[in-house]
């Protein structure tokens, strides 16, 4: 052992056009530990790890990085160089080929060969060995697209580990995982630590840091706030460091008075789009009142997103059941009809379904609302801009201007753009599908406050969430789903994390995952 520290980062500064992403960042990472890296969106975490992993070449930033006491300088696009040195990164968005098998993915680009011909036997036996070594219970010949998101994540990690990695960087690995999968990932990370691999761990879920990390570095606006021992700090202190102020409550208190029924769903069923004959949702009935927040909890694949897209008229054609809007039965066959009925949906995946990323912010905000500013012949652009500005200000969207391309905004601000576009359409019912996924603590709080204000103004809200605390903190009632069925609707005062978990996993006796 040469040194206590495997990585030393000294005075690293990185500029993007118009923005300083990192300024004089310095800290050290201990050999063989798990080092947490946290900060709000846009704090510079991802930029920093991309430098470490060789995505940005050494001439695009200032400062020095030492790996095992040796200065490393990666040239242009040298992710391979970084891997050779022993630094690999597992991204937030999976970088695997869905059409290939587990083994092919793990060895993509370095398939074992015999005289130029791929040796499939060796490839698969090596794959088996790796999976066994890290106790991953995944069939080596399964196509990636047949695996769950969590399993795919494991494959990604296995791929990194198969190349004699000394430092493994995980950039928000749990944002798409279920509780059980997260627990499993934590186990694997502990196992890795025991075998001497150093991990850099990025996440928005603070409790994870306290479960596995040894040290935490907090970044804010491209600056290092502090590096602390995990054992010596608390969640509150870390949040305070991240947002730069003391955060007393995670969820704002609302003053809601739910009114009369606005939506009634009776025995709603829809056939699964990808697997014929199977049902995506089965006989779901619930009602929703004006000014109420109905939370929907459930694991990934429980049918919660399918339920709201069915109500929104965009999930398949084989739909049975009845929907009553303000007492009148309606048939909603497309998003267009839903919007006309005053229903808005903030979709689960804002990049794929919520935004036209290559367009300006104002065009995204006004997209569902252009009718308001135009006749058959023209759009009143001045009126449009004025209205968009009103909503951008109301939601405090941080953007250089309304003409900025939406792609360049941070995740939290992109989400605000999606919410702005739907607020402008003045909905009666607002459906939010996991609205705070991958969003930093500060922006989350703003979004919570906003949701409260909206419901106080009489808008009925359906909110899906992956985080139990969030559902518990925000909802008046909580509907829990499991395998396409509604397993229970709980009142806020009766609901606990344990009860929800039990209903979501389909077991009557909650005994942990």
């Amino acid at each position, binding site marked *: 052992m040469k040194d206590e520290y495997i990585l030393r980062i000294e005075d690293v500064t990185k500029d993007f056009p118009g923005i300083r992403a990192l300024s004089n960042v310095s800290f050290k990472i201990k050999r063989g530990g798990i080092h947490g890296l946290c900060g709000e969106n846009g704090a510079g975490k991802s930029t920093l790890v991309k430098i470490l992993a060789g995505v940005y070449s050494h001439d695009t930033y200032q400062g020095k990085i030492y790996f095992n006491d040796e200065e490393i300088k990666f040239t242009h696009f040298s992710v391979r160089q970084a891997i050779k040195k022993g630094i690999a990164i597992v991204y937030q968005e999976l970088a695997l080929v869905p059409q290939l098998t587990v083994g092919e993915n793990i060895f993509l680009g370095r398939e074992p060969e015999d005289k130029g011909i791929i040796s499939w036997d060796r490839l698969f036996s090596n794959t088996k060995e790796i999976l066994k070594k890290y106790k991953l219970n995944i069939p080596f010949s399964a196509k990636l697209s047949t695996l769950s998101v969590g399993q795919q994540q494991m494959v990604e990690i296995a791929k990194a580990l198969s190349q004699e990695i000394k430092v493994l960087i995980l950039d928000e690995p749990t944002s798409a995982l279920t509780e059980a999968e997260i627990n499993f990932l934590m186990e694997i990370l502990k196992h890795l630590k025991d075998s001497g691999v150093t991990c850099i761990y990025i996440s928005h879920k603070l409790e994870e840091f306290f479960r596995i990390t040894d040290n935490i570095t907090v970044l804010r606006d491209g600056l290092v706030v502090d590096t602390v021992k995990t054992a010596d700090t608390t969640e509150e202190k870390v949040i305070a460091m991240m947002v730069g102020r003391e955060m007393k409550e995670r969820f704002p208190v609302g003053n809601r008075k739910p009114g009369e029924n606005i939506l009634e769903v009776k025995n709603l069923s829809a056939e699964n789009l990808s697997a014929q004959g199977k049902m995506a949702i089965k006989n779901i009935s619930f009602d929703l009142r004006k000014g109420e927040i109905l939370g929907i909890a459930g694991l990934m694949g429980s049918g919660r997103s399918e339920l709201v897209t069915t109500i929104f008229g965009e999930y398949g054609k084989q739909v049975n059941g009845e929907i009553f809007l303000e007492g009148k039965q309606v048939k909603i066959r497309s998003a*267009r009809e839903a919007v006309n009925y005053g229903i808005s949906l903030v979709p689960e995946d804002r990049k794929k379904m919520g935004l036209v990323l290559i367009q300006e912010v104002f065009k995204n905000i006004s*997209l569902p609302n*252009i009718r308001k500013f135009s006749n058959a012949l023209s759009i009143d652009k001045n009126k449009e801009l004025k209205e968009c500005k009103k909503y951008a200000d109301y939601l405090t969207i941080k953007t250089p201007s309304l003409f900025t391309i939406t792609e360049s905004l941070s995740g939290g601000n992109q989400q605000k753009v999606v919410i702005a576009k739907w607020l402008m359409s003045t909905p009666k019912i607002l459906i939010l599908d996991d609205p705070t996924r991958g969003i930093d603590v500060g922006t989350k709080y703003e979004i919570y406050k906003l949701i409260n204000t909206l419901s106080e103004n009489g808008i009925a809200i359906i909110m899906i969430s992956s985080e139990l605390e969030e559902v518990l903190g925000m909802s008046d009632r909580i509907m829990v789903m499991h395998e396409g069925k509604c397993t229970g609707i709980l009142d806020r005062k009766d609901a606990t994390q344990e009860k929800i978990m039990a209903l979501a996993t389909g077991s009557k006796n909650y005994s942990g995952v």
Partner: protein
Amino acid sequence: MKTLNFIHKIKIDIRTYTLIIALLFIWLLFGSLTGWIFFYPRNLSNLFRQMTIVSFLSIGMTLVIITGNIDLSVGSMTGFVSVIAAHLQAIMLPKFLPTLFSGLSVEALGILSTIITIIICLLVGVLLGIYQGYIIAYLRVPSFIVTLGGMLIFRGGVLGVARGRTIVPVENSLRWIAQGYLPKNLGILLLVLTIIVIYLMSMQSRKKKKQYGFEIKPFSYDFLIASAYSALVLGFVLIVNNYRGIQNPVLIMIVIAILVTYLANNTKFGRYMYALGGNIEATKLSGINVQSVVFKVFILMGALSAVAGIVLTGYVAAGTIGGGTNYELSAIGGCVIGGASLMGGKGTIFGALVGALIMASLENGMSIMNMSVFWQYIVKGLVLILAVYVDVASKKNNS
């Protein structure tokens, strides 16, 4: 923040300017290589006319490409409409027009024949657009396949109508549309009106912005921009008036370009078109009928192909079996050089027209230099690839 915005703004403009600078560079190159024959008013006048037929297609193709589709059938469709126009004028209409309107002079009958021909041809274009658009938008067959099929089908139609012969003659009035010139006085009048409109629009826009309380640029800036546009129009009219005047087809092209640009930038339809090209899923979930937008774009493309076909017939004064061959490639090339992205969501009519002009300039310049045809093909192909490479490289540097 403010300076940032300013730099951002200029950067966007630089991309448009690169295109114009490239065009000027090509012109200067050919000018010096041809002993400045290239810049004779007669040649420039011809150049503008040469680009018009493909330009009609480029204008429509821009919209098709913005929606993330492609139309490979426009060349054959142009040829098909062209032989139909020639067939109507040379064979069908002369059979019964004189008996129906026996009192009219030969000249008047010719004009009537041309009007009927134009109406029928436009209808044919719209119908073909409806046919292809329906299959693409509502039956969801990829546009590449549908229009590849269309390319063959319409070429078959050309051969069927023409039966292997060149169809002549066409009426003088039809030839006048494609080959004629606007009287010079009328050209000057149009010039003055256009310049007045440019300044009025600039003033109007300032007034509106003020009403809504937006920041407005200094008066001198807007004045300068309006003056630059006016100078461009002035230069064009002076050049062509130095020869014979504004060509009729060029005027038609300019009018259509302005109308379609307005459609793309200032209407709901245009906004939806760009949005669905950028992300069709998000646009659909915003409650927009994306199928109907795509459908209408293909109808418009069909109508513009018909315009190209009509002008083509007048230009060659006949219907030929090879009419319109490979036009789709020139049209797509013009769009792409002009900055349209085949991924969808990006592209401008102005860019496509400059792109078409660049392609036409290459062709024209190389012809004056007596370069062999095989070199002309090779150079055009290389320029197309180079143009897209420059665009890709500049994007990489920005990010």
